[in-house]
């Protein structure tokens, strides 16, 4: 029988060494620096009259996303509790694939029909807003599909 030699924890450890606390603090600090940069740039380009408020709002939005992204990049996944050695042959991988295929088909349908309908209506919207909407639809669709597949096949 195989025995696990790598200690696992809820938040894992960095691939560059150190404990969970170091990984979390590093992720938060890098996220803070990057979100501050993004917030300042956004405010300077779009809201010079409300610079501070715009920068703070953008920073607040970016901080959790960038911190988690940094954590995911730095993480040694073998040290994460519940991480398996061969995730690609686990059933969850199949559920993921099925949900992703469903989302792709849904997006084709939504974007195709939406494009057709709105071209007749001559409706105008910001590209950033539309793309954010598409991403949101994809994420919610994936979560629902994955949950349904897990319930049916788990």
């Amino acid at each position, binding site marked *: 029988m*195989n025995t696990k030699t790598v200690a696992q924890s809820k938040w894992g450890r960095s691939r560059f060494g150190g404990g969970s606390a170091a990984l979390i603090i590093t992720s938060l600090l890098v996220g803070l620096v990057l979100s501050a940069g993004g917030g300042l740039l956004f405010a300077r380009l779009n809201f010079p009259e409300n610079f501070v408020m715009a920068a703070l709002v953008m920073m607040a939005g970016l901080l959790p996303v960038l911190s988690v992204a940094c954590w995911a990049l730095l993480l040694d996944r073998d040290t994460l509790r519940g991480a*398996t*050695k061969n*995730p690609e*042959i*686990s*059933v*969850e991988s199949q559920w993921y694939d099925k949900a992703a295929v469903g989302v792709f088909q849904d997006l084709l349908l939504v974007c195709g029909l939406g494009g057709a309908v709105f071209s007749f209506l001559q409706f105008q919207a910001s590209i950033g807003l539309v793309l954010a909407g598409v991403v949101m639809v994809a994420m919610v669709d994936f979560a629902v599909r994955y949950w349904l597949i897990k319930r049916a096949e*788990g």
Partner: protein
Amino acid sequence: MENTLPARRLERGFSQQALADELGVSRQTIISLEKGRYDPSLPLAFKLAEVFGCRIEDLFQPDAK
């Protein structure tokens, strides 16, 4: 697909978690396999056959029509 996994696992004295650890997969994978809700990929089928010291067709049989 029908399979003889639960009987073979118990014969060997493996818990579902122990077998999952041996294969490097999640425990949910073993549960789904044993319930016949997950047809394994070839790499996983070969790993299972290796663990139980038998052929793949000894572990998995097509559904009887």
